[in-house]
Every structure is written in structure tokens, then in C-alpha cells.
């Protein structure tokens, strides 16, 4: 404990504490059997801390920085040769203008990018939520009962490879609404990974856990809630994570076809207005939102994955 305290004091104030904890382990691993060297150890520990903290920081930041620098450089070169493509500078200024007032509302066909983004997210949330409500229980039943799996698995295998956009006309026909049709497409594309991952998770529950349940003669409800659900949760959440990525891919395409308010439609509309810099901005916005959704769900999966 004293070593911990000392290294925290000696460590550079600016570096993140997480990095220091990692260094501490590394330093400890290098000198596990050196009881005689107790006295000269603290300064050594502190120095190693400093250097590897800096290395960790550089490793974490240098790659992405270089990547983005290359992207902007390449983009600038392309913009210099092809006049229709807006340069990074022009796009940056357009973005500043755009995000200075993201929530204006001049009627249904002219709303701020914030409103468009929120509409898309709302559609994804509804379609995705409904898919979870149907898909997760369905996955449990398919995984638990081989007979149900025998009936439904061929259907799932047949329908899963179909592009969700192929379902859009049926959605329009059924719901007589472009908005609901887009939600319908999200529902369809989100449900498959959730069903399949949940079902696979149920079949992969370690036999040992099921044997514990069998020896105790737990009720089907207790087996479901105390054994199956926690064991399947990591698989299920992985399905959810895959679904949200697909859903976010699909919503952009679906909105281009259905129109209304939404980031996909907005992107298409800016193409019609020939505001190419806005298209580039939309691409970045879609990418960033997709990344954030993915990271959040990955964190969620990690939170509910149990070490054995």
C-alpha cells in the first residue's frame, strides 16, 4: 500500500491515474523476488512509472492523431484536384455554422440537423426496442426447446440474409406511413442478431450450471431467472450491440427512401441542394453517433460479463 501511495505522489500530476495503476503492476511483475533491493526501489518505481505512463499515453493518442492527420491531408489533396469536393476548411466552417443553430424549425422540410438526428435516433430506439421485446424472448424459447428451434431456425436462416430495405414496401403497405415503415425496417434488421445470439447463448450455458439447477430441482422460473438469464446476458447484449450497429446503418438508407425528418433524409436533401459540404458533415455525424452507440453497448456487455 505504501508503494502505491508513494508512486502516486511521485508520478507526474498530469498523467491519468489509470495509466499509473497499470505501470505499478508492470513494475511489480519485473521485480517480484528482490527483498534486498527494498531501499533503492521507490525511485526506480517512480521513474518506470513516468516513462511507461508517457509511453501508454503516446501509444493511445499517437495512432488516432496520425490517422486523422492523414485523412485531412488526403482529403485536402482530393479537394485541390476535384473542385466539386469541398476542402476540410470549407467543411469545417460550414459545420460551425450548422451546429451554431442545430434546433431551428422552418416547417417539415427545413429543420436543424439536431432535429433530424433526434428523429433518426427515435426511430431506431422504437424499432430496436420492439425488436428486443420480441427477439430476446423468442431467442430464449428457441434456445431452450429443440422442437421450437427445429421449426423456426430454417425460417430465420431464410429471412436473415434479406436486406431490411426489401421489407420497406411491405411496411408502407401495412402501416400506410413512411415513419412507421422506417421503424418497421429497423425492427426487422435488429431482430435477427438478438434472436440468434440469445438462442446461441442459451445453448451454450455450461452444463455444470444446468446440473446445479437439476440437482436442486429448481422450478422452470427459477432456472430462467437465476441461471439461464445471467448466463445468457453477455450473449444477449452482444446481439443487442450487433443490432444497434445494423440499425444505425439501415436507418440512413431507409430515410433516404421514405423522406420526412431524419439524418438520412437530410443527407439526401442536401444532395438535392448540392451542398456537398453538408453531405460530408452528415457522414461524420452518422459515424460519430454510430461509434458512440457501439461504445456504450460494448461497455454494457463488459459490465455484465462474469469472470468464472
Amino acid at each position, binding site marked *: 500500500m505504501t508503494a502505491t501511495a508513494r508512486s502516486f505522489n511521485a508520478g507526474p500530476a498530469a498523467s491519468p491515474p489509470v495509466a499509473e495503476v497499470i505501470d505499478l503492476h508492470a513494475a511489480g511483475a519485473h521485480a517480484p523476488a528482490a527483498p534486498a533491493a527494498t531501499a533503492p526501489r521507490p525511485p526506480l518505481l517512480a521513474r518506470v512509472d513516468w516513462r511507461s505512463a508517457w509511453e501508454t499515453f503516446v501509444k493511445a493518442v499517437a495512432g488516432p492523431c496520425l490517422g486523422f492527420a492523414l485523412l485531412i491531408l488526403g482529403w485536402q489533396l482530393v479537394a485541390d484536384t476535384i473542385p466539386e469536393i469541398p476542402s476540410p476548411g470549407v467543411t469545417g466552417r460550414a459545420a460551425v455554422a450548422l451546429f451554431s443553430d442545430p434546433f431551428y424549425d422552418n416547417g417539415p422540410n427545413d429543420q436543424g440537423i439536431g432535429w433530424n438526428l433526434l428523429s433518426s435516433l427515435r426511430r431506431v430506439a422504437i424499432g430496436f426496442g420492439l425488436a428486443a421485446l420480441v427477439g430476446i424472448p423468442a431467442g430464449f424459447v428457441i434456445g431452450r426447446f429443440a422442437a421450437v428451434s427445429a421449426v423456426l431456425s430454417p425460417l430465420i436462416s431464410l429471412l436473415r440474409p434479406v436486406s431490411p430495405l426489401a421489407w420497406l414496401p411491405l411496411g408502407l403497405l401495412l402501416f400506410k406511413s413512411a415513419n412507421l415503415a422506417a421503424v418497421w425496417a429497423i425492427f426487422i434488421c435488429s431482430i435477427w442478431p438478438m434472436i440468434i445470439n440469445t438462442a446461441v447463448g442459451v445453448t451454450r450455458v*455450461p452444463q*455444470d*450450471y444446468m*446440473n*446445479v439447477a*437439476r*440437482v*436442486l*430441482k*429448481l422450478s422452470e422460473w*427459477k432456472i430462467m431467472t*437465476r*441461471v439461464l438469464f*445471467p*448466463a445468457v446476458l453477455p450473449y444477449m447484449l452482444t446481439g443487442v450491440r450487433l443490432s444497434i450497429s445494423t440499425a444505425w446503418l439501415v436507418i440512413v438508407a431507409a430515410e433516404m427512401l421514405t423522406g420526412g425528418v431524419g439524418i438520412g433524409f437530410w443527407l439526401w436533401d442536401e444532395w438535392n441542394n448540392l451542398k456537398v459540404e453538408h453531405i460530408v458533415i452528415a457522414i461524420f455525424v452518422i459515424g460519430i453517433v454510430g461509434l458512440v452507440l457501439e461504445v456504450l453497448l460494448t461497455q454494457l456487455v463488459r459490465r455484465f460479463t*462474469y*469472470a*468464472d
Partner: protein
Amino acid sequence: MDKFLSIENVGQVFKTRKGDFIALRDINLTVAKGEFISLIGHSGCGKSTLLNLVAGLTRPTSGALICAGREIDGPGPERAVVFQNHSLLPWFSCYKNIHLGVERVFGATESKARLRERTLAALQLVGLAHAEHKLPHEISGGMKQRVGIARALAIEPDVLLMDEPFGALDALTRAHLQDELLEIVAKTQSSVIMVTHDVDEAVLLSDRIVMLTNGPAATIGEILDVRLPRPRSRIELADDERYHACRTAVIDFLYRKQSHPARQAA
């Protein structure tokens, strides 16, 4: 001797793609109340298969197993199992892992406070009262195995079935847990059937050692009565003639009469 558990002409055949695989044949064994039985034999001889049959996790293809006057037709809490790899549910604390069984067995008839008492008593029994709130991955392998034993003991089974309970542990932890098990079994008077491949463990703990012949089609080769007085202490037994005689008898069976299956095949 009062027959508490009896295994009558039991055989087990597994269907495989290459045809039938006869794992066990003609197993006959009776176990008295409070008796400690070890099943020993080379790997692949069907020790665990036999234990699973008694647990009811699998059904025999021939013969019958009778426990307390009733045929075993499935698993049940009166025949608690300590699994080889502890099999604690990783999302539950040690307390909740034990409480799950206690609640199932006594929940209908006893108060919540009493269930809690029972769970804590089981933790106390294996010396883990302090680990009540720990998750399985936060404790050592030996501690996990102790929680597994506590979980089985807490539901007051008629028979305790243990599948190489100390197999995965280091020698010191194993010795420590064996001593604890001796004390616990003396206290609770439960019947125990334990699968092991450790000769010293079998002699130290058992009233009788059941030695299985090599598979396939394994059966009981010899049964050794371990006539050592209880309570037993490993230190005193180290110089005991009778202990060495038992040990020699088992080793003789395992390495002379049933030399290792791999070598036999070669």
C-alpha cells in the same frame, strides 16, 4: 448393515457414431447410512459415470439404483453433488450460491431468518464466514471448492456425492480440505460417495474403497475395507502399519492388476 443406497446390476451403454460404447457393466454395491465410500480407478474407467447415475443426472441402461427405498429416477436435493470444478454460479456471491439451494429445500417450511441462519452456518462450517459477500472469481480455487461443499451440505442431503472434489487443488490446500471434510462428515454423519484418483485421499477418508477395473465395460474389481479407527489424523496414520497395508492394497490393484490402460493398449 442397513442398506441405505443400493446399486443393483447397473450397466451403462452410450450410443456413439461408432456403435454402442459399454461404459459400465454389472455394478453391484450397497452403501450404509453414514458410510464414506471412495470410487477409485484409472481415468476413463467410468467413476464419474457411476457417480452421475447415483446423482440421477443420467439414467442407467440396465439395472436399478435405489435410495432410501425408492428408485432413483432423476436428480434431487437429497443427493447433493459437489462438482469437479466447483460450478458456482459466477453472478452470485458465495452467500447467494448457497442460499439458492437452502431456499429451494427449506423455503416452503421455514422462515426467512432461519434460511439465512442455515446459509451462514454452512459458510461457517467450511470456515468462510468472512467471504459471504465475495463473488466466486474474487476467491481462490480452494475457497471456491469449499463453497461448493458448503452448498451441498447446506441442503442436508442424505448422500453427498463428490466428483474429484480436490482434484484441481495444490497438495497443501487439498490436505487441508481433506482434514476439514473428515471433521464435517464426522459432525453431520452424512453418507458420502467420492470419486478420486488419489490413493492417500481414499485411504484417509473412506470406510470402504471401491476399485473399478479399466474401461470400457468397467466393473467393480475389488472392495477394500479400511479398518482404521476414527477420528483419523494424517500425522498419526503416517506411521500406522494398517494405513500402509491399505495403501499397498490399492496401489497393487491399480498398478499391477489393472496397469495403466494406455500401456495395456500398447
